[in-house]
């Protein structure tokens, strides 16, 4: 299995489309950093305008942590797209290339093929998030320095002490990786159904966007179905930036997301195992 995963990762990283994600983040994040250099103080002012009426504060609140937090918040749609771009091609790409014939006539099971491709996709997703973390957190800290983190959540202003922040980010990125793994799994499932990668990529994004829109509509019916939409839990990384951290809610979100991953993967495996290879 390890050999298969190595081969799949090799194939993934030999394709130019894989680098779109890394380049996009490598360009987008510095753009945000640059914007924050010029407009950061103004942004911070805006965020704290209400408290400023009654309080005076000192400290480097415009720091790498705040910028990283804002970046994580704002990349909710971009990252899923970059993940789907690769995950949607994992199975469909072989069909397009006609290489299934070569692969499946090898003495390896279809289960091994699907599993190794899936795991390679998950590894790619995690690498993308690690890259995001490095670009936003590490570079952010270098440019803006360290300091306390100001977060506004549920109409509460929270300030986290310097030494109380990094672990939250590490777990938040971890959780973000889990959320993006759900996206990868969904794209992977769609990939098992068709013979062209465009379909899975577009379908995955359509599902995410529709779910996000439905969750945002403030009508009772949609609010009732909101807890059943996985996109609702992808954003739960923000729970780490609360005090106290609601671990029970996080565990619930983790289990739901993990459940989705298992479900999407199992379905893809079932479909692929039963499929007639006609390409």
């Amino acid at each position, binding site marked *: 299995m390890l050999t298969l995963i190595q081969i799949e990762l090799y194939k993934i990283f030999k394709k130019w489309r894989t680098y779109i994600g890394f380049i996009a983040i490598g360009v987008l994040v510095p753009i945000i950093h640059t914007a924050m250099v010029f407009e950061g103080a103004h942004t911070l*002012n805006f965020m704290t305008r209400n408290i400023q009426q009654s309080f005076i504060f000192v400290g480097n609140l415009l720091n790498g942590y705040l910028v990283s937090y804002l970046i994580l918040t704002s990349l909710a749609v971009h990252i899923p797209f970059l993940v789907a771009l690769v995950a949607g091609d994992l199975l469909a790409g072989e069909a397009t290339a006609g290489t299934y014939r070569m692969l499946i006539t090898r003495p390896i099971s279809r289960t091994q093929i699907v599993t190794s491709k899936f795991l390679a996709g998950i590894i790619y997703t995690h690498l993308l998030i690690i890259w995001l973390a490095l670009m936003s957190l590490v570079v952010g800290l270098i440019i803006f320095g360290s300091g306390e983190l100001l977060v*506004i959540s*549920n109409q*509460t*202003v929270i300030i986290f002490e310097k030494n109380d922040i990094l672990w939250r980010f590490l777990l938040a990125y971890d959780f973000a990786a889990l959320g993006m793994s759900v996206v990868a799994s969904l794209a992977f499932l769609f990939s098992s159904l068709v013979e062209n990668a465009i379909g899975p990529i577009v379908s995955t994004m359509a599902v995410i966007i529709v779910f996000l829109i439905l969750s945002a509509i403030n009508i009772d019916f949609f609010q009732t179905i909101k807890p059943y939409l996985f996109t609702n839990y992808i954003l739960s990384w923000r729970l780490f930036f609360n005090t106290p951290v609601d671990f029970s809610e996080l565990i619930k979100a983790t289990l739901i997301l993990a459940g989705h991953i298992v479900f999407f993967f199992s379905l893809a495996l079932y479909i692929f195992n039963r499929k007639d290879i006609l390409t």
Partner: protein
Amino acid sequence: MKLLICLFLVLVQIGFSQSKDPDEIINKVVTNFNRVKDYQVDVNIKIDVEFLKVPETKAKIYFKQPDKVHLEAEGFAMLPKNGMEFSPSSLLKNDYTAIYEQDIDLNGVKTSIVKVIPTGDQGDVILSTLWIDQKIQVIRKVESTTKTNGTFTIDFSYDDKVKFPLPAKIVFSFNLDKMNIPATISGEPDTEKPHTKNKNSDSRTKGKVIVNYSNYQVNKGVPDSIFEEKNNKSE
């Protein structure tokens, strides 16, 4: 006869005490405070406000007469605006009318209540009530009503070991009703339950900030340059 004289003297005493001069009371406090030319002090700030979750912070406050104040911290620190500067002269910097109300026992200390009504339209304060400890010529408590920030109270505690009229602890209390509750960042949908939103806006919970002062360095000289730096970051 003796009885009559005694009675008369008592009545005169009462009469005097009932009609204390508020301006005099205040001026004594100001004069006492003016013994302090400058100071720097270490502060420990604890914020206890429902919509603020801020860790206990350490900072330094610098003060120089008549009204220069500077807050400095290694990391982050925040203080209510109205609690930054509590010297009597700052409380009384604009024109005002003072009325002596009565003497009252405040936490076991005898204090005189003086009401201060600023005249003219400058300043945010509409009315202040001062509890003045005439024994050591300090203000024990202030209650002020402002135009924009509701009512706040400052309770002062003093340490006998400090020879100057500088508090060891102040408790700054305010009414959350009038304080604007901040919106979320970047407008993304709230992942939290919506009902807390309503709870806050109807809430009459009091917020508190407790500041402990220690290690006063009084009249040791504070250079003006400290106050010239970009003062407290209010932007």
